[in-house]
């Protein structure tokens, strides 16, 4: 009798434990998961797509210090298919070499994707947290963050030329704690890879997605191959929009704002500089998608 009761309980516990472990594994990405050889072998495909499909252009990579950790702060575009991140990763890896560590922060759900999650880990992506970013910066690696996150990446296509960090200032404290400069990275074109209609913030709140999955949005777009695309959970086939990325000069917070910078002032400074650069890139575009 003892064995009959005990054995099923043990199995159930083991099953739950296994499932929990698998979920934790999927949601965890360590710095050492980055694989330079994988990156080197992935570069040709990224180069083909970036050159011929997206006609990508990345300017002023020389603004990134060659031998110091920096916090790269970008505007997020393209829904869940973040084309500009792939283009920037290619440009960074060919400019500095795959040997130079480089990490990006991504939402837990992106890391947990069955195939893409593994690819993201190997390319240096870690789940978005202050702790992970600090570890990477301490290890001497540049870290790319998108303060606007899921809110900005799903903004309507007609707001393609707007920086929208939704008031998130955590990146400033991160740069101050790590003592590294901020290097703004501005891109345009990602929001034309589909017709993004709405972030669906109200819908996400109504469905409690923000509490359950840290999702502030339930975006609605018209995208290939789905037509009407709600959530963009399975991604979409991006239209061949021309992607242009510009790296701005580094901002040394202590030098520019004194030993105790005011986060509101820094936020205003960084976003206004990025907006100015984005206005310039937007002015260069003649037609949507074509560029």
């Amino acid at each position: 009798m003892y064995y009959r009761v005990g054995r099923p309980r043990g199995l159930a516990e083991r099953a739950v434990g296994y499932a929990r472990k698998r979920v934790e594994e999927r949601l965890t990405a360590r710095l050492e998961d980055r694989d330079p050889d994988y990156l080197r072998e992935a570069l040709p495909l990224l180069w083909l797509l970036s050159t011929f499909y997206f006609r990508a252009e990345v300017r002023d990579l020389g603004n990134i210090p060659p031998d110091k950790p920096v916090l790269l702060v970008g505007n997020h575009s393209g829904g869940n298919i973040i084309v500009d991140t792939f283009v920037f990763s290619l440009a960074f890896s060919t400019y500095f070499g795959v040997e130079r560590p480089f990490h990006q922060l991504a939402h837990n759900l992106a890391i947990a994707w069955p195939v893409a999650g593994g690819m993201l880990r190997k390319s240096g992506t870690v789940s978005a947290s202050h702790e992970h970013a600090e570890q990477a910066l301490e290890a001497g690696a540049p870290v790319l963050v998108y303060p606007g996150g899921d809110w900005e990446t799903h903004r309507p296509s007609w707001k393609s030329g707007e920086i929208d960090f939704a008031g998130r200032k955590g990146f400033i404290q991160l740069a101050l704690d790590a003592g590294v400069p901020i290097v703004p990275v501005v891109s345009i074109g990602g929001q034309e890879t589909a017709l993004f209609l709405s972030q669906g913030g109200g819908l996400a709140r109504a469905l409690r997605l923000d509490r359950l999955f840290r999702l502030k949005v339930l975006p609605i777009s018209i995208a290939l191959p789905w037509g009407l695309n709600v959530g963009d959970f399975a991604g979409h086939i991006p239209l061949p929009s021309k992607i242009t990325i510009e790296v701005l000069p580094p901002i040394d917070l202590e030098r520019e704002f004194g030993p105790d910078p005011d986060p509101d002032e820094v936020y205003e400074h960084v976003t206004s500089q990025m907006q100015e650069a984005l206005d310039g890139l937007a002015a260069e575009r003649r037609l949507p998608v074509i560029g």
Partner: protein
Amino acid sequence: MRINESTLVAAPAETVWNYLADPENYLRFMSGITHWEVAGDRPNGLGARYRILLGVGAAEVGGLVEMVEWNEPFDIAWHSVTGVDNRGRFRIREERPGRTRIEYRLAYGVIGGGLAGLLTEVAAVYPMRQQMRRTLRQLKRQVEHEQRRLETERRRGARRTAVS
């Protein structure tokens, strides 16, 4: 993938060599180059290292290269140390007095890149070849200009000697 281009310049091999041996000249004639920097203590010679980047399509491609042959006045060859795998060579041969052929060879590839790697190598042939041709045209112009400057200097020196 291996690309080979050549040009004939109106200058002796010695002038060509002296021009190619000076790392400061590379930014003047290498087409598509976005970055050329001496990396290390040696400006040139066997074992000298340079960080070189070349704009190809959507990326600046290159990395650290090391001089593996420095055979005056015939061959300068390099291999990549980091970055995209590549090896290159300037082969200098005087075909007749005052006429030198410069061959520019470049081989590149991505080991383990699979089908995409193969397609990339093929897709990059045209832009790379165009850049190599422009490089040789600029190199020919620069070397011949240098040769004319040297000859003028020599004539001026000879005239001064005759007058005195």
